[in-house]
């Protein structure tokens, strides 16, 4: 059912990226994520970047245990991808998005 519906109705992505301040890795993660979204999910995503220094409690709800971590909240299932998101294939797979043809 899902497979049949998917091409017809574009899926909206709700993403949340947890970082630690302005560390090099966190900065890289933000940059990478931004690029992937622009290239593959243009117009159909919300991306929140959360600094765990500023808001440590935000990690609890999504059971984030390390940063940087990208969490795909929607569409289900919930998926967590850890690291600086430099492995694009792995990120796209995790998001269940077909890579650019």
């Amino acid at each position, binding site marked *: 059912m899902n497979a049949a519906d998917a091409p017809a109705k574009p899926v909206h992505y709700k993403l949340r990226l947890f970082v*630690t301040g302005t*560390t090099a*890795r966190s900065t890289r993660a933000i940059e990478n994520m931004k690029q992937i979204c622009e290239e593959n999910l243009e117009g159909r995503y919300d991306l929140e970047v959360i600094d765990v220094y500023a808001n*440590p409690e935000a*990690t609890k709800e999504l059971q984030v*245990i*390390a940063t*940087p971590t990208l969490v795909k909240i929607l569409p289900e299932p919930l998926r967590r*991808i*850890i690291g600086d998101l430099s492995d694009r294939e792995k990120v796209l797979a995790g998001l269940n998005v077909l890579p650019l043809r």
Partner: protein
Amino acid sequence: MKAVAQPDMARFDDVQSGASETLAELRLRLREAEETLDAIRNGEVDAVVVGGVSGQQVYTLENADRPYRVLIEQMQEGAVTLARDGTLLYCNQRFATLIGVEREQLMGHLIFDRVASDDIAVFEGLLAQADGAGRTSELLLVQHDGDHVPVNVSAVDLRVDERMPHLICCIITDLTHSRRRSHELSAANTQLAREIEERRRAEESLDVALDAAGMGSWDLDLETNIVRRSRRYGQIFGEIEQGDHAGVEMLLAPFIAEDRPTVAAAFAVAQRSGSIEFEKRILRNEDRAVRWVHVKGRTQYANERPVRISGVVSDVTERRLVQQQLHQAQKMEAIGQLTGGMAHDFNNLLMVIGGNIDLLENRLGQDSRSVRYLAAARQGVERGATLNQQLLAFARRQDLDVQAVCVDELLATFGGLVRRAVGEAVTVKVKAPAERWLCKTDPHQFETAILNLAINARDAMPDGGSLTLSTEQRVVDAHVAALHGVVAGSYVVAVVTDTGVGIAAEALGRVFEPFFTTKDVGKGTGLGLSQVYGFAKQSGGFVVVESEIGTGTSFQIYLPATEEASIAPAVRKEKPQVRGYGVVLVVEDDENVREVTCELLRGLGYDVLEADSARAALTVVRRGERIDLVFSDVIMPGGMSGLDLARQLKACKRNLPVLLSSGYTAQQFGLHEAIEGVELLRKPYSLSALSNAVERLTHRT
């Protein structure tokens, strides 16, 4: 759920597919967990988040917080972390530099070593507050060399873990620079305040000084055309409203129409010339009085362009009035000098004529024609002498027989005389005052003055009218007294008022001048009012004249009041000419007078010696010949007067009598103080007067 109720093949399939889905999900989650572990193991994360009883804790991994460290090290504030007891756990380089000590020597030591002793309590307060809120204090830190440095300490608590529950993070800001700036600023402020105060005081004292001088100030801004005027300015111009008003027109408005173009021109010229000064008339706002104002100012320039004219203004009406009075007084004084000198010479001429008539009379026969001619000639001499007396009266060189006189009694006694003088067409009223006032004057001269005024009034009322004589007592204040050159005090004022044609304003200032007359030629001498003026002046008083064309004129003679009554001296009875004997030394510089005098004396039976000066007379006296009387003129050239001669003779020849002769007054020479044995014979004198005086003095022993 259905499947549980009815297990069948389809249900098995369902179970199978559910199981496989769960398995796939579990696989995914496992992979995710493995990936997370791999990432942590491979160091691909910056921080791990650990849940705990006190909330989520973020543990930063190695080097992850380097940018913060760089920031902390780079910033221009000192950054310090402290334990609760004040042990310095960390400080940045900036803090070490501020204190002037290596970081290694600071960390692990108590911060209090670096706090000024007076501020330790303050710092302890910063550490003690542990409610998590930020707080700041300003205090002094001690540098390595012992100097104090002012800082702002901003502290905040940081909870680390149970073992170290309170870490205190401080940001320390060096206030030296801002303190210096604020010191400079406050010094500049103080300086400015002082300058403002000085300026204000200068302005205040300027205002006080201007006010004391009765000066108003004004300021015309040429660019905005705004005029600023001081309070006193408003008072001078009689303006009710005050403040700033626009326009040079506002400055010009009060000036009378006749003067306004000149004033406007003066302001226009001032823009080029750089200064302004004029004395013009204004119409004072409150009472529409015409006042003279003196305006003086200066133009200020900016880049050679006139930007403002400012200056002062004062009311000079009084000053001009005083000046006018002074000019008048000076003019009268000059005329008096001239008149007096002329009268002196004139007297000598009359003396020669009269003396020679007397001599002729003795030689000529007593035929009726000769007697008539001589009488006519003598009458001419007497008329000349009367005129001369009036001239001398104006010149204030007549003899005044001053007594304490009740003016009202005098007025009453010669009321009849006045009535006769003015004729029937004029009604004479004599107003009697309630009190009886005494003043010091010569009753005969006073009578003459009143008669002169009465005659003047009569001539002003050709068609009749009324003449009122009255007296008042008035107090003359210092101001008025100074105007008239008299002493302030109580005065008796004799007022003569007519209802005549009045005197024109331009003539009013000249009425007292000798020979000034508006009457037809031959009708008046022009000496009547001069006598009034001279008499009043000589009595220590003055005359005020008020007149209005068509309404009448009022003359007020002010005479000093007195309390004491005095007894009039007994009038000496004059005998007809008497002959005598003895030697008389005649001292007279005028040869003609001397000649006639000697001749007269010889005719009376005296031997005569002559001298043409006081010095020559002294020489004669020293020769030791018999001299019974020295008869000398008073005014003589050669630096020695008849009076000097009399005094010298008194010193060496006490018993030698001296008879002085002059057309001038006895008072003028101070003779009323009397040198013993010295008498004065007024020129021109008659033969009988001469004979009486000489006989009296030569035969007194």
